[in-house]
């Protein structure tokens, strides 16, 4: 098994990067040995299609599982077609995330968890804010 974790830095202590397609680094880990390889995301600054590019990148490197913060609709569909199980909503460090996965305390998702273009900095297409409920 090979797990891919999106991370802000290239180490196991680095915090999770909540963006999937535009994360800073992919960390590929064998959960049994905790041996890992950190690769900077080649598509973090892509003008478009970052989630699809990232999906292809990690699928081609043999990942079966992704641990990240959010995935958009295109990345979700691509990861599904690539046979990758997706876990989202993860925070903390890379090693925390892998330990939670090994303990079986993570739930995989069956739909995208972010709108399109969520991870793009500034300008158009940022995720919509959540409505604020009024207490009665």
């Amino acid at each position: 098994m090979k797990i891919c974790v999106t991370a802000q830095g290239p180490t196991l202590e680095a915090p999770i990067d909540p963006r999937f397609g535009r994360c800073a680094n992919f960390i590929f880990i064998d959960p049994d040995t905790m041996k890992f390889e950190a690769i900077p995301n080649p598509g973090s600054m892509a003008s478009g299609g970052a989630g699809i590019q990232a999906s292809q990148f990690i699928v081609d490197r043999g990942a079966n599982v992704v641990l990240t913060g959010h995935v958009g609709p295109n990345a979700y569909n691509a990861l599904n077609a690539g046979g990758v199980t997706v876990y989202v909503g993860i925070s903390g460090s890379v090693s925390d995330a892998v330990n939670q996965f090994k303990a079986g305390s993570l739930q995989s998702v069956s739909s995208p968890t972010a709108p399109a273009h969520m991870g793009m900095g500034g300008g158009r297409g940022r995720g919509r804010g959540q409505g604020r409920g009024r207490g009665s």
Partner: protein
Amino acid sequence: MIISIASGKGGTGKTSLAVNLALSLPGQIQLLDCDVDEPNVHTLLSMKNEQVKPVYTLVPEIDEQKCNQSKNCVNFCPNHAIFVGKKGINFFPELCYGCGGCILSCPNQAIKEGKRQLGVTHRGVANHGVEVVYGNLNIGEPLAVPVIKAVKEQASPNNEVTVIIDCPPGVSCPMVESVHGSDYCVLVTEPTPFGLHDLQLAVDTIRQLKIPIGVVVNRSGIGDRQVYSYCKSEQIPILLEIPHSRKIAELFAEGIPFVTKMPEWKSQFETLFQMIQERYGR
């Protein structure tokens, strides 16, 4: 000759100028509305004998049985519109620009040319014999440029016909595609700091295209004098000023081109056209 009417800022009066100019000039006039996201030239005119044509873009049709997972298409596609996985191939049509490179790159001929409709073009004859062509992009469709091209392909090749192009606002691909190939570009602005800011962007863009520029100041009398000093320092002629007028605004709100109710403006538009034609006409 071909005159495009553009602006950096939206809502400066491009359509108003384009329609009033078209209704004021002698000879055969063709008016192309290239603002395919929101065409509105036809709302100010009454069109007859409309012909509607669909506009398509090329898309790949992938035969998964023939795919040998070479991923040449994935590596070729600059927009990452194709994903090849173990459990299937995904194509993302909204990211595809229709270049066809994936088809050529496939070693197994697993990809064929398909098509996807982006919108339509309308062509008809409006008031005063003005021929109008406009594009209408499908709702939610990001690919405007192929529809703009389909409108421009219907421009008259006859040099005797004056072609006026109403461009989309902004300085991105749709605006560049609309202005490209014009003999002259009129930039419409309002004399405000916003108007000036976006005028400067538009001037920088059109200069890259090496098309001569003139400015029409709309709603003159509001704002400040910065647009005028900018044009002076850049040696850009101010061709016409249209005042901030309640009557013009009311007519526009009713969908009436103001030159039809204020005929004294007709000669001003004719003069503007003559100034352009004398120097830049073909």
